[in-house]
C-alpha cells in the first residue's frame, strides 16, 4: 500500500502548472527554474513530458552520498528524502542520478529533488490533465494496461 508518482506523458499539454505548484509549495513564489519537476516541450512534435525524481529503491544518489543526507525515508514508503542539515553540498548525488532529477541550486544552497511534498504532491493537484497521478502502486499502471486489454477484447469479440 505504497503510493507512486505516476507520469502519463500522453496526457501532458505542456502547461507547466506542475512546475508552478512545486515552486509555490516549496518557496512561496513562482520560480519554475527551481521546481523539482520540469515539463519539457518539443514544439515541432507538439509533445511534452514531465520529469521528476523516481524515488529509486536502489538509488544511485543514496549510494554515493558520503553523509547519508540522501537516504530512504523511514517514515514514508517510496520516498528518497534529503536532509539539509547533514548535506555537505558535495553534489555527488547530482552526478550519480542517471535521470538528472537531482540538481544543485546555488541561489538557495540546496539540492532540489522531488520529495512528493511529503506524501501530498502539489503537482498532482494542479495538473489539469491527469498527466500526473499519486496512486497506489498496485494500481498505477492499471488504466494503461486495461486500455490495451480493451483493444484485444474488441478484436476478439468481433470474431468469436
Amino acid at each position, binding site marked *: 500500500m505504497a503510493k507512486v508518482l505516476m507520469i502519463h506523458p500522453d496526457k501532458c499539454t505542456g502547461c507547466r502548472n506542475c512546475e508552478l505548484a512545486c515552486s509555490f509549495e516549496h518557496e512561496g513564489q513562482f*520560480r519554475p527554474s527551481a521546481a523539482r519537476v520540469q515539463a519539457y516541450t518539443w514544439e515541432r512534435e*507538439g509533445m511534452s513530458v514531465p520529469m521528476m525524481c523516481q524515488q529509486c529503491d536502489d538509488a544511485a544518489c543514496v549510494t554515493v552520498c558520503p553523509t547519508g543526507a540522501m537516504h530512504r525515508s523511514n517514515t514514508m514508503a517510496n520516498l528518497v528524502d534529503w536532509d539539509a542539515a547533514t548535506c555537505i553540498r558535495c553534489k555527488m548525488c547530482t552526478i550519480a542520478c542517471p535521470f538528472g532529477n537531482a540538481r544543485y541550486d546555488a541561489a538557495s544552497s540546496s539540492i532540489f529533488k522531488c520529495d512528493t511534498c511529503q506524501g501530498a504532491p502539489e503537482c498532482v493537484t494542479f495538473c489539469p490533465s491527469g498527466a500526473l497521478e499519486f496512486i497506489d502502486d498496485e494500481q498505477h499502471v492499471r488504466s494503461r494496461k486495461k486500455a490495451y486489454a480493451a483493444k484485444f477484447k474488441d478484436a476478439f469479440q468481433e470474431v468469436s
Partner: protein
Amino acid sequence: MYGWTGTILRIDLTKGKVKREATDVKMAHDYLGARGLGGKIIVDELDPKTDALSPDNKLIFAPGPFTGTFAPSAGRYEVITKGPLNNVIACSNSGGAFGPELKYAGYDALIIEGKAAKPSYLWISDDKVEIRDAAAIWGHDTPDTTDLVRAETDEEAKVACIGPAGEHLSLIANIMNEMHRAAGRTGVGAVMGSKNLKAIAVYGTGSVQVADPDRFKAAVMNARKLIQAHPVGGAGLKAYGTDVLVNILNQTGALPTRNFQDGYFPTADKIGGESLAAKQLVRPKGCFSCIISCGRVSKVDNPDYKGFGEGPEYETAWSFGADCGIDDLDAITKANFLCNEYGMDTISMGSTIACAMELFEMGAITAKDTDGVQLTFGNTAAMVEMVRKAGKNEGFGAKLAQGSYRLAESYGHPELSMTCKKQEMPAYDPRGVQGIGLNYATGNRGGCHVRGYTIAIEVLQNGAVMDPRVTEGKAGLDILFQNLTAALDSSGACLFSTFGIGGAELAEMLSALTGVEYSLDEFLRIGERIWNQERLWNLKQGYTTADDTLPDRLLNDPIKTGPAKGEVSHLDQMLPEYYSLRGWDEKGVPGKAKLKELALN
C-alpha cells in the same frame, strides 16, 4: 512589488543601448500591465503623427501581473505599438510561454525603440541583454528561426519572432512565439520587421512574488474549480477546440460565406471541430498555466497539403473555409500552418483572399493580375498558393500581403473589403447577430471579435442569454464586454477563463497577488479607462463617428440563404445608445466628465 517585477527594459536599437527603468507603480496599479500599460506608454511617449513603420515607433512586449503565476490560464502577454494597418494602438494578445519567461527574466515590459542598422535579434537572459547579429537567421520561417536562435542562446529560451512576412513589412504580418502561438492582428509583425528585429529570445531564472500566498492560492483553487466545472472551460474546448463553433454559427445562419455574400455554408460540417477531431487532431495543447487546453496539435496526411503543427482555430477554419467557399479541411489546415510559418494573421489573410476571389469573379481583376491563377471561390489549390505567395511577397501575393482594404481600393472597389477601420472582420455575420456588429463597428483596433465577445451571450448561452436578432440591450452588453475584456487583457489572463469565472474572481486573485485591493467595480473601471484611452488615441488619428460603421453590404444587403435569410445589421439602432451609455457625445467623443471620472486627461 508583488505580481509585477518592478523593472522595465528599454532597448534603443539605433544606438545599441539598453536601459533598465523602474516600473511606474501608479501606472501599474491603474493600467495593470500588458494592453493597458503598453497603451499608456504609447500614449505618453509617442507622437500621434509617428509613421508606424518608421524608427520612431515603439514596439512594446508586456506581460501582465498574473503572467508567470498559477492563476488559471493566465500566462498571456501583449505586443503593443502604433499599428501600421490602421494607425490604432495595435495591441495584440498571445499565449504560449514567452510572457511568463519575460517575468522570470525580471521584466514588466520591453520597450523597443529605433531601428537596428542590420538584421538583429535580442538575447535577454535575466539582466544580461545583448543585441546580436541575425544575418544567418533573416529570411527563415518562424519554426526554423526559433531553433536557430535557441542554438545560439539557450535551448530552453522562449522565442518571439517574425517570419518572412514581417521582414517584408506585410501589414497583416504577425509575431509568433513557441512556433505556434501568435500575436496575430493589426500588423505588429511589420513594426518588428521595420526595426530590423528578427527575434527576441528570453530566458529567466527569477521569480514572481505573491503578496498574500494563502489568499492567492485559495482564490486560484476557487477559480480553477469554476472553470473545470464549466462545460466549455472544463471539457468542451479541450475536446473540440474553438473550431467547434463552425456548426453552431452556421446553424444560427451567421457563418459569413464567400466574403460575406451570404451567412450560411451548406457543407460547413466538413470544416468544423468535429471533423478536425476525427481527421486531424493528434492531441490537445495548453499554454503556460492553462487548465483549458484549447490548442490543437494537428496533422495533415493528404500529400497535397501534408503538414504538422497547431490549429486551425475557428477563425482560421472560417477565413480559409466558408469565407473562401472552401470545405476542404486539409487545405485549410495547410493554409493555417503556412501562415504560422510565414508569420501572418490568418483572419486577415483568409478574408483578403476572399475579397480577391470576389474581385476576380466579378472581373475587376483577371488571371493577368493573379499570375495566371483562377482565383475563384472554392478553388482550394488557388487559395493555398495565394497564402504562399503572400508569405513570400511574390507576384499578386505582394498585394494580398497588404490586406483587403488596400487591395480592394486599388481595384476601385473598397466596398468589397469586409473590414472595419481597415481591419478584416472575423467569423460572425453581424446581420445574424446584432451585438457583435456593434462590437466590430466600435472596436478600437477595427474589425475584431475578442475585444467584446458578445457571441458568448448572443449565441453560446454562457451565463446569460440574449436574442442575437434583436438590438435591444446590445449597447449595454457590448460596453460590459469591452470594459471587462480590456481589464482582463491587461492582467495577463486568457479570455477563455471567462468560461467559468468573471470579473469578481479575477479581481480577487489580482488583489491577493499584488497586495493592492481591487474591487470588481475598480477592475471594470480600469477596463473602461483603457478602452477610453484607446478611443482618444484613435480620435487623434483622425477617426470619427463615420468610422464606427460596417461595410454597406452588412447594413443593406440581406443574408441570402439559411436560418438568418433576410436579415441585415441594424447598427443605427444601437450606436447612439452605445455612445450615450459610454458617456460620449453624439459624435462618439468622450465627455469631460467621463474623462475626469477615469482620470484620463
